């Protein structure tokens, strides 16, 4: 779930952001600080696949936004994560209670 591409798509789902704003936003909601090389490697891949696009003229703080294909890809990715979360939550809910041994320790 810490895949840089998913984190970038998630951040851009709420609006346009440039590299530094993306990095700050991802750190805020995911607690992950992406290095500049990792971040721009992922941005390049996403732009190449048509999932995000640059906005405006070239410059040091060029913003990016989600494309329609990017929104679909994020939707699919989130649906998969939701399935994993539901599966894990259900598994934990039905987990048998830990048995205590005579010394009182969990087994």
């Amino acid at each position, binding site marked *: 779930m810490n895949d840089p591409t998913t984190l970038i798509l998630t951040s851009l789902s709420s609006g346009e952001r440039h*590299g530094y704003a993306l*990095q700050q936003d991802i750190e805020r909601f995911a607690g992950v600080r992406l*290095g*500049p090389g*990792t971040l*721009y*490697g992922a941005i390049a891949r996403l732009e190449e696949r048509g999932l995000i696009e640059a906005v405006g003229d070239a410059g*040091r*703080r060029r913003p990016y936004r989600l494309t329609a294909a990017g929104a679909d890809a994020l939707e699919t990715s989130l649906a998969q994560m939701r399935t994993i979360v539901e599966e894990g939550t259900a598994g934990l809910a039905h987990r048998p209670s830990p048995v205590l041994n005579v010394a009182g320790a969990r087994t």
Partner: protein
Amino acid sequence: MSIDRSAERLLHWYPASWRARYGEELAGLIVDMSDGRRLSWRLRADVAAAGARERLRVKGVGDPRSGGRMVLWAWAIFVLAGMVVAKTSEHWRSALPPGAHPVASIAFVALIVLAAATAVLVLAGIAVTVPSLVAFLWSGGWSQIRRWILAASVLTAVLVVATAGLAAWAHGLTPAARNGHDALYGAAFLTWVALASATLLAWTKAGTGTADRLSLSPTVLLLHARLTTAIAALMALMTAATVAWWVAVATVAPGALTGPPATPHASALVPALVVAAVLMMLATTLAAAGARRAHTV
């Protein structure tokens, strides 16, 4: 050095095409992240690793020459290992009684024949690019490759002078002095090895850099793909022959690998041979990967 300058320097890890598209933005992000402080090693490592990945991607994806380039570098590494084996195997025949080492002899002859055959295939791969090279130079391509060719030529000239000087020096020394008993000559020999390695790598860089700029026909690319497979296979056989020769000599007389005077109870694990064997295996693996890529692109 200013943060801006440091950021600009870090961008050199990336290929030019990538820098042209994202360089300014990435430099801006690096400056923003530094917050006016010195760039951390973690940040530098992250950018360097990402840049190296981009270079590999740019060179590999959709480029039918990337497999041939990998095999050529593999061959250069293999030749370096071969130089080590050649030096280590100078005296093994004379150190053993005649007829005592048939397996070693067969393996060693096989190694020499295979090395010659591989060199011929590498030269054939270069030869088929000559028409494209001529067309490239004719259309003003010299300026694009000049620095590599000049650097390799200068190194070659220095190597020729150094070889002549070292040979004249060695002529006046005893075999023992030439094989590690004269510290000054030993240091000079190691310098010569470094110079020869640098020259070989400089020509490899010149060759691959030039090949990248040539317009090669599908026929030449197909031929290169077939040559890469053959070269990779021959490198695997040479590695096997080297190991077979090493084991055979080590079984009969391990001291024969250390040079004159032969040491009766010497270990067969000669460090130079261990390094050579590892280099051969790495080069063979790289060549196999290159051959595979040459066929799949």
